[in-house]
């Protein structure tokens, strides 16, 4: 008992000393962003006046029904989509377009069909990390391909891969350039449960590797995945003019153990809350009954 108190006391002291160093800095600032698309039937406002701040080192998930504007919102961070009004700040700079400081795993993989698995990653590394030597670039490609267990398939063309394999190539490509902000649009959607679990571990490894300084924003439809990986889960309303419905924090200690956390009451509460937000008909009372 007394040791516990001392521990807490020292922790507090340590915190206060480290305070200025540990003060989280903003990695991504989405300020009042509205995105409208011009369509033949007039303008379609996908997301409206969204503001969200993501701290450096944070893992945030976006969930919401299909078509609500998750990819669009991600696009404004990556710079692929230009906000109609509002602005996005990434790493302290206003976003005007895409850049290699923000690595992207696209929802549809976006591999170049005429390049082998190896070349797909190599060309990205070659462009994004110009300062590296050829040997270093090759080493990086090899390491990341091995991480996603695709080294044996390195000479295949994307057309010869399964959906899950393509997705892993896209993940390896984003990981390889080691960006400070990682934007993942349903990165594990096409994977089987086991491969998905492995990828979760690899993602967290990558995140741990950089002293947890990497910021990750991820779109997912998988509530368990969102809870296991994230610090906060952003639930979006349905579009058009989608807004943020609620931001659900995930106050689970890290490192998290997939098998154990499911029995954690905090996990169960968070899960219920998210389910409740996503499926209006359900209520927590229904589930408990």
């Amino acid at each position: 008992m007394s040791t516990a108190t001392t521990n807490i006391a020292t922790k507090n002291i340590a915190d206060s000393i480290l305070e200025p160093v540990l003060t989280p800095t903003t990695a991504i600032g989405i300020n009042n962003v509205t995105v409208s698309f011009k369509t033949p039937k007039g303008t379609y406002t996908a997301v409206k006046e969204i503001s969200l701040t993501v701290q450096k080192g944070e893992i945030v998930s976006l969930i919401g029904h299909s078509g609500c504007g998750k990819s669009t919102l991600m696009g404004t961070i990556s710079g692929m989509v230009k906000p109609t009004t509002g602005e996005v700040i990434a790493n302290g700079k206003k976003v005007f377009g895409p850049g290699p400081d923000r690595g992207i795993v696209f929802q549809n993989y976006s591999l170049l069909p005429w390049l082998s698995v190896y070349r797909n990653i190599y060309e990205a590394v070659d462009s994004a990390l110009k300062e590296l030597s050829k040997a270093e670039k090759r080493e990086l490609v090899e390491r990341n391909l091995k991480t996603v267990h695709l080294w044996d398939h390195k000479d295949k063309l994307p057309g010869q891969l399964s959906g899950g394999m393509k997705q892993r190539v896209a993940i390896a490509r984003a990981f390889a350039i080691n960006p400070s902000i990682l934007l993942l649009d349903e990165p594990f959607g096409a994977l089987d449960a086991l491969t998905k679990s492995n990828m979760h571990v690899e993602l967290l490894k990558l995140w741990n590797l950089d002293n947890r300084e990497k910021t990750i924003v991820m779109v997912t439809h998988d509530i368990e995945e969102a809870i296991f990986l994230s610090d906060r889960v952003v639930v979006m309303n349905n579009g058009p003019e989608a807004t943020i419905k609620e931001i659900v924090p995930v106050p689970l200690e890290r490192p998290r153990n997939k098998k154990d956390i499911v029995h954690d009451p905090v996990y169960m509460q968070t899960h219920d809350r998210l389910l409740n937000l996503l499926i209006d008909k359900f209520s927590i009372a229904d589930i408990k009954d």
Partner: protein
Amino acid sequence: MKAKAIKIGWSVVYFVAGMLLLLGMWDMVSRMTKGELPSPVATWGTFKEVMTNPWQNDPDYKGIGIKLLSSLARVGIGFGLGSLIAIPLGFVLGSSRIAMNIINPIVQILRPVSPLAWFPLGLAIFQDSPKASIFMIFICSLWPTLINTSFGASSIPQDHKNVGKAFGFSVWKYITKIMLPYTLPHIFTGLRLSIGVAWMVIVAGEMLSGGIGLGYFVWEEGFNGGSIGKILVAILIIGAVGLLLDRIFTSLQKRFTYAV
């Protein structure tokens, strides 16, 4: 595997049937004209005669092989120069709306002009009839390649462009790793159409320009020499070479089309 063999087998059967039909009709017409049009058998004799010593290369007489090569060389140079301009220009038109808007009307006006109309212009510019035929081939090789390349370059999917943007591809890398590979099948379609036109036009060009070549062979030895057999032989050779050129570009086009 077996299904493929059967498919190939059938296409051979169809080909042979088509050839037999052609020979049958040819023979019939020949009989009706009482040999005015040489029969297939007679033409076969002329063919063998023409084919003896095809590489004869005397100053006063060139064999059919030399003539064929000389026509092919002219087509090759004109077509090569045309493609060298049409492909990069197609890239520019395909990637820039403004360039497209400016150049497109010019293309629309010049494209329908008969290749033969360019011949006198070429002659006036170069004062040399073989160069004038090359100029003519050059002009008519431009359009299909230019139009197909620019169409290909303008239809690059957003997904592919996004890859270039997201990973900061340089302009050179974008051209060589995204634009060129994506556009390649379209380029080959254009090249295939271009070489077809070029090959068609060279015969006419050589009739006008004289010199060594298949076109002049048809005119001089066939028509002026009063040998319809030689005209027929030339037609068959021109047709076969044209088919071969077409097949080469078709297979290139297939070779460079990728499944996503």
